[in-house]
């Protein structure tokens, strides 16, 4: 029996989404075409966009559909940087440590090729951005800040950031804010207007939609220079639009928001956390304590003295799919920069395990993990010594 506890990597499509997706895939027509077939496709596309907009608390015109979270983040970070440096010089990008690689690598690229300077803002021990440090970074020279970019919730440890305070603080200094909500969307309310953010990235497949579909919610007042040129089909993005993807994303996003606050998932997660802490010596829950400060589907532990890759193998052999956090191209588990930024010692960060639950997770899944984990940790510790 396969136990899938890696919803933060990708969350299985529901039958409802799959049906809407495959049905829409049969529709012939380019949404940009003027004829009837094009109009039919356009109708699907805009229906999907409207659903995504409702789920994010924005107007449809503010939704730029993309190929996924990575493109959304790149469009926001690079696009806003370029737009803010048009006729002005604002070389600074402010970001917390512990961002997803989409942001880390995009910002590093800007530093290498566009002369950006990056101010990394410290995290506290639970992975939350230090607002005092952010304020200090903003106050240094507010006029040269291109943008502030931050996770809405951590994809690794599940900590929810104080986004309203963060946005208010940045805006006080006139800096626009991008929030990467890929790990937050479908877990906590992501209301872009209420948060006051200028741009927010989300991805469909993290909420049970298809891979290859995402969105950047871009406030009417915000501008980005496009990454892709060739037709201006959308504001800030060229390329034929994916009507079926939009439909599927719309269904998945609507369902994800309707399911909030994920009380059932949170209860399962809480039982899992209690069970692990009770049954495995030296297990430490990383990130914020369960509650409003942590996404309900996330449990993240370190097991000092065990290697994450050994744990992953042993659990996989027992039919349980989990994650160590982030992996590089060759599939090697890397030491988590998020944990290190939280002040977790290297020796403990090596034994990291991210367990993420979702809409199809059952009590039996949690039981299977609780059954297998103590022995896996013991073996992995023996293998590392």
């Amino acid at each position: 029996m396969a136990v899938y506890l890696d919803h933060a990597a990708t969350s299985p499509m529901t039958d409802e989404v799959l049906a809407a997706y495959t049905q829409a895939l049969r529709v012939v027509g380019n949404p940009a075409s003027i004829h009837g077939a094009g109009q039919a496709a356009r109708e699907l596309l805009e229906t999907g966009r409207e659903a995504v907009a409702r789920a994010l608390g924005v107007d449809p015109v503010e939704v730029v559909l993309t190929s996924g979270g990575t493109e959304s983040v790149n469009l926001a970070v690079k696009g806003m940087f370029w737009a803010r440096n048009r006729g002005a010089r604002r070389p600074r990008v402010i970001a917390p440590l512990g961002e997803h690689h989409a942001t880390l690598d995009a910002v590093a690229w800007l530093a290498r090729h566009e002369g950006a300077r990056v101010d990394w803002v410290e995290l506290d021990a639970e992975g939350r951005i230090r607002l005092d440090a952010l304020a200090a970074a903003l106050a240094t020279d507010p006029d040269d800040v291109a943008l502030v970019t931050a996770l809405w919730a951590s994809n690794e440890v599940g900590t929810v950031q104080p986004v309203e305070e963060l946005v208010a603080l940045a805006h006080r200094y006139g800096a626009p804010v991008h929030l990467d909500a890929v790990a937050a969307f479908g877990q906590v309310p992501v209301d872009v207007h209420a948060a006051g953010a200028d741009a927010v990235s989300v991805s469909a497949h993290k909420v049970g939609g298809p891979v290859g579909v995402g969105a950047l919610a871009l406030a009417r007042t915000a501008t980005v220079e496009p990454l892709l040129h060739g037709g201006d089909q959308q504001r800030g993005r060229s390329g034929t639009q994916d009507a079926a993807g939009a439909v599927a994303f719309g269904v998945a996003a609507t369902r994800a928001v309707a399911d909030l606050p994920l009380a059932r998932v949170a209860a399962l997660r809480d039982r899992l956390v209690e069970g692990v802490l009770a049954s495995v010596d030296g297990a430490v829950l990383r990130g914020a304590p369960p509650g409003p400060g942590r996404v309900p589907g996330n449990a993240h532990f370190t097991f000092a003295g065990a290697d994450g890759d050994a744990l992953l193998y042993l659990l996989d052999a027992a039919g349980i799919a989990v994650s160590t956090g982030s992996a590089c191209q060759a599939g090697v588990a890397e030491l988590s920069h998020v944990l290190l930024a939280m002040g977790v010692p290297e020796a403990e960060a090596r034994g990291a395990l991210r367990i993420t639950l979702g809409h199809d997770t059952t009590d039996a899944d949690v039981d299977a993990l609780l059954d297998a984990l103590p022995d896996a940790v013991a073996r992995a510790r023996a293998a590392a010594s």
Partner: protein
Amino acid sequence: MKILAAMSGGVDSAVAAARAVEAGHDVVGVHLALSRMPGTLRTGSRGCCTVEDAMDARRAAAKLGIPFYVWDFSERFRADVVDDFVAEYAAGRTPNPCMRCNERIKFAALLDKALALGFDAVVTGHYAEVRQGPDGPELHRAAAWAKDQSYVLGVLTAEQLAHAWFPLGATPSKAEVRAEAEARGLSVAAKPDSHDICFIPDGDTRGWLAERVGAQEGPILDREGNRIGTHPGAAAFTVGQRKGLNIGYPAPDGRPRFVLEVRPKTNEVVVGPREALAVSELAGSRHTWAGAQPADAAAGFACEVQVRAHADPVPAVARVEAGELVIRVDEPIEGVAPGQTAVVYAGTRVVGQCTIDRTVSAVPVDA
């Protein structure tokens, strides 16, 4: 048995894993990530380190229907193989990094981890055979003499051999392995062999070493200690080397000169005639037995010794004397440098090995 198949991404390890699967074992494929920066996509393959190799290994495992993981040994590899290689060269020795990798990574770090995680054995695509002898496992040469890799496995001890399996050992030729890979639909069937040192991307070992060891000009001496030239850095020279000395004038007897000795501490390179390369005895304190220690180790036993991966074995007598494995060859041999490994054979069986610390020239200076 529960088997861990170490899969480099090459054809040999893929076929070895396939044979383990076919023999009915519970097999898991593991690719060792030996570099944190896997570099670019190269043409061909060196059997490790590249993203492409990891991908090839993954595709082969999928074809065989076995689980596949990439395990990170890059820190151990850096410390135990790469840094060791540089340090040995800096000390004027000529190490074999593939042996070091077998000794400390594949059949130490990996094997230990595998056993602790519940595996019974590690399978690799090496050409050699483990046989059950009267006193436990024995390591033998492969049936395919041209591909035999028992030399680079000579460092394995009885405990390591007890958990090692080389399914290609009895295969008569590499061509047969490639044909089998083709028949099994493995995409690596025609992938080129790896030859060079995997962590030196362009194969330029000298340049790579010079960058790390540093190079400072120093004297080239003859056997009597006279300065006869200048070298750009002693560490880049290897005993037996003829080219690249650039002394500028011929020896008094008009014969070519060869590097006889490298002295990193004083940054000196000693050169002389070819016959001075001949060695009658070699010895090393770091020695191991591939199985039980021979009963007559103290008294001395007749054997054959091989000093490089592709050298011919030569008759010798070996004995353990004051903690050293001392090997006297029946006829003097060339191409022996400190840091190299001498592997001692009895017929096809590997008896043991030592890292060569010192040699005794067959031709004294005043001869």
